[in-house]
Structure formats: structure tokens, C-alpha cells
């Protein structure tokens, strides 16, 4: 049960932190349509995070971070607002700073492709709740992936500047790709039990999808990919997560027994 809860938190943290970064685009997108679309992606991921935290708390109530005295916050908020960086289990791809719109779409493409591959398998989890959450997420992530993929192709085939920018964004995002394929012991155990998915098992299919986008965009395949073990899954993060959490948690922590 502890493993299952930890696993749900890993997937929830990915979704929450990614949602938080995408939400920073709000009122800053290149056009109104993109403001709406990016908010949609952020909302979908936020919804996934909430369901997954709730599942984690139900499976292992002792694993819910302790709340300040007198706080009426539900478990999902205990996870989101009352853990420090070292307690978060999200991958680095979700936490790094936003960059430009090319970074946004490249990052969403890579993230959604990977998460879609995971959730497609996860919809057959032996845990019926995880399976249901995953089944719902599949539709959402398919949309995210297609949205971002269309933009990657558009930018690659747009102007000289947009091509230069989308290639630069790949260079920045690509070093974060290997971590997505690294298996954490919890993932390995759960995969063996049929409740979770080993990311190594979907790594090749993620590459296949990305290769299709590169082809459509007329881009070269990305090279150099250093091997890596789990990073964020073990609570080892980049500097970028700290200010993200400081901002996200500021109101909740300023009013530790507040009611919202």
C-alpha cells in the first residue's frame, strides 16, 4: 500500500508541477487561442493531480504529510502545500523554468507523449481507481500531445526565427528526456505487481512518437543522451523547484489554519 501511494504521488507531482508551470503562461500566451489552450492543459493536469493525491491518501492515510495544527485542509492540499522540495517526486522536466513558447510546446509534447504512454498501460492497472484515473487521462493527454505536436511542426516550418527557436528549445529540453526512462524501485515493484508501469517499458514507444514529429517537422533526430538514474523521483531536484514551491505555497502557509 505504501508503494502504491508513493507511486500515485509521483504521478500526481508530475501533473501538479507541470500544471503550475503551464499556468504561468496565463495572460502571457502569444494569442488568445493559445491562452485558452494552455489553460486547458494546465486544468487537465491539475485535475489528474487531485485525483491521484486523493487515491494516495485513501490507500495509505499515514503517508499524508502532516498538516499544521487546526488546518481543515483535505489530503490533496497537504501534499501540495505542506511538503518541501525534497518531498516532491516529480521529474525535472516538469519543474524547470518556462522559457519561450517553443520551450512550452516542446516540453508539453515530450511530457504528454511520455505520460500518455504510461497512462495507456496504466488504464489496465490492477488498482481499479488508478485504472479509471488513467483512462480519463488518456483522452486529455492525447489532446495535449496533438496540440503541442502541431505547434512544433508549425514552428519548425514557419519562419527562420521560429525554426531557430524550436531547435534551441529541443536542445534545452532534450537533456531532461533520459530521466523519463529511468525506473525507480517503487515503479519496478509496482510494475511487477501489475499495478504500475515501468517507464523503461514505454521508452522506445515514446521515441517512436517523437520521431514522427521530428520527421513531420523536418528535424534531425536528437543525439547525445547521457544515461541517468531516477532524480526527481528520489526527491533530488533542480534549483527551479524551490521558487516554484515558495510561490505556490505562500498563501496556504501564511494561513496555516485557514479555510478556503
Amino acid at each position: 500500500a505504501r508503494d502504491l501511494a508513493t507511486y500515485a504521488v509521483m504521478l500526481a507531482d508530475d501533473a501538479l508541477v507541470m500544471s503550475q508551470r503551464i499556468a504561468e503562461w496565463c495572460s502571457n500566451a502569444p494569442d488568445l487561442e493559445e491562452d485558452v489552450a494552455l489553460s486547458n492543459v494546465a486544468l487537465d493536469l491539475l485535475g489528474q493531480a487531485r485525483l491521484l493525491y486523493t487515491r494516495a491518501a485513501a490507500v495509505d492515510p499515514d503517508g499524508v504529510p502532516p498538516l499544521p495544527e487546526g488546518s481543515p485542509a483535505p489530503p490533496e492540499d497537504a501534499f501540495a502545500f505542506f511538503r518541501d522540495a525534497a518531498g516532491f517526486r516529480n521529474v525535472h522536466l516538469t519543474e524547470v523554468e518556462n522559457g519561450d513558447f517553443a520551450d512550452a510546446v516542446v516540453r508539453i509534447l515530450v511530457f504528454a507523449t511520455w505520460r500518455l504512454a504510461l497512462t495507456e498501460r496504466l488504464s489496465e492497472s490492477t488498482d481499479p481507481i488508478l485504472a479509471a484515473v488513467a483512462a480519463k487521462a488518456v483522452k486529455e493527454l492525447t489532446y495535449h500531445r496533438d496540440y503541442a505536436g502541431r505547434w512544433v511542426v508549425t514552428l519548425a516550418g514557419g519562419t527562420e526565427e521560429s525554426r531557430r527557436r524550436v531547435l534551441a528549445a529541443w536542445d534545452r529540453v532534450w537533456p531532461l528526456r533520459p530521466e523519463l526512462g529511468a525506473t525507480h524501485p517503487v515503479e519496478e515493484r509496482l510494475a511487477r505487481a501489475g499495478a504500475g508501469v515501468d517507464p523503461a517499458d514505454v521508452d522506445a514507444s515514446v521515441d517512436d512518437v517523437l520521431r514522427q514529429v521530428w520527421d513531420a517537422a523536418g528535424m534531425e533526430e536528437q543525439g547525445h543522451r547521457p544515461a541517468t538514474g531516477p532524480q526527481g523521483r528520489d526527491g533530488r531536484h533542480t534549483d527551479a523547484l524551490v521558487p516554484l514551491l515558495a510561490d505556490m505555497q505562500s498563501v496556504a502557509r501564511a494561513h496555516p489554519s485557514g479555510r478556503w
Partner: protein
Amino acid sequence: MTATADEAELVTDFEAILGRRDRIEPRDWMPERYRRTLVRQIAQHAHSEIIGMQPEGAWITRAPSLRRKAILLAKVQDEAGHGLYLYSACETLGVSRQELTELLLSGRQKYSSIFNYPTLSYADVGTIGWLVDGAAICNQVPLCRTSYGPYGRAMIRICKEESFHQRQGYELLMTMQRGTDEQRAMVQESVDRFWWPSLMMFGPPDSQSPNTAQSMAWGIKRDTNDELRQKFVDMTVPQAEALGVTLPDPELAWNAERGHYDFGEPDWDELTAVISGDGPCNAERMAHRRRAHEDGAWVREAATAFAARTSEDGR
């Protein structure tokens, strides 16, 4: 409408439509001043939705619960959506979104003065929902019956969503009122800041609003500024009592004779200052919008170039 029909006949037809409270549609003839007034009014409304994303949007990343984060994100997304409907309604009058954006960014068209006030605590998210969206609804419900078809239909959809936002805002404040002393103080402080600016959202007093008569005759305005302001006060005072906050106006009192609440005079000089650019956040709001627009230029150009290329290729 034929090429030979002369102006007088067109005007007669136009007024007949207004007379039977029917709708003018994009392909109908309309007087140039009617068209221009509508463009200005719809554009200002659209711009307000877009600029209005900023003061609330700033709190999405800091929302104190995931539920509130989802609610707020969805709300700000709706505002972007409202902007889209309204720019589309405006485009049916022959002005492109790009032109309208330029008019906003150059300061030649305005947006609602309320968004030039800062948001300083999470209670402001509730107060904006309750008071600002509340005032907007008072303004907008009559516009659902406005004489210009696309505008009226956009307003119907918008009003439905706005009243949902208003309830959510009020509910946030209610919840905070059941929280800690500090939270109650936050709510009161927020209401203190937003009350007078909300009253100013209805515009200057009727005595100083020379265009009202023409707009009412054209059916693109249905009530005067002061009528709407009174309606808003009458609606809001009992809500404030239920909420347990004090509205910061010592003159506020029920007038049994009038059957309305009496209330004090807003500081019209402040409204003039805010409209003319000297409000607390005018520079900030415009700078944010301009920066976002400029930062996105290369993306819009890329999309245009890509579309041109793929249609050339016959793909």
C-alpha cells in the same frame, strides 16, 4: 437592401427594427455612428476581459488550495474565451482583431477602470467575483437584449458564465469568513478597497454622461448609469449583511420612501484620474499586455508563414 434604396429608406427600416425590439444583423444596413459606437463599446468590453485576466491571473500560482486553483484557472480561462467571443462580434462590424489589439495597445481604446486597481490578497479573488463580476452582470444582463444580434448573443453566453463566477467568488468569501480572524480581516480589507471602484464601474453620473440618450435610443444601452448603480447597491447590501462585512460608506442606509438604499458619492476625480491613465496599475497592465503581445509576435508570424506555405504546397 439594394443599391438603389436611398438613405432615408434605410434609416426607416433600421428604426423599424429597433422599434419592434428586433435585432440588427451584420448584413443589415446600419448608420455609421451606430456601427462606430458599437465597435467602441464591444471592443472596450473585449479589452476589459483580456486586461481583467491579469489581476486575478496573478493569483493562480498562489491559490491556497487545489480546488481554488482549479476554479480560478477555469475562471481566467473563461475571460480569455469571453474576449474571443467579443472580438468575433466586433469583427462582424468590419474591424479585425488585430486592429482592435493595436487600438488597445496604443491606448486609443480603453478597458474597464476597475482593472487598474491592484489585487493584494487572495480575498481579492473572492471580492472581484462578488463585487466586480456582480457589477459587470448588472451592466451586462440588459445587453442580452441589445439591438445588435451578435453582441446580444455573446452577452447571453457571457452572462451565464459571469453569474457562475460571481457565485464562486461569494462562496470563497463565505468560506473565508468561517475561517480564522486573519482571514476575516483579509475579507473586510479587500471589500474596503473594492467597494468604491466597483460603484465607479457604472461610469460617471448620468448628468455627466452625454452619450447615454443616443445609446438608449439605439438599443445598445437599456438603463442609465445611475439606474444600474442603484440596482447594484440594492442587490449587494443584503449580500454584504449575509456575509458579515461592512461596506465602507457611512451614508449607506435604507430609504423606505424611495424603496432603495441611499449611498454616498464616489470620488469622481479618482475615476477621472484612473481613466486618464493615473490609476494605481494602468502602466503595469498596459506594459504586461504589450510585452505579452511583443513576445508572441514571432509565434504569430510563424503560424502565418506556415499556413501560407502549406496552402501553397496544396497540402
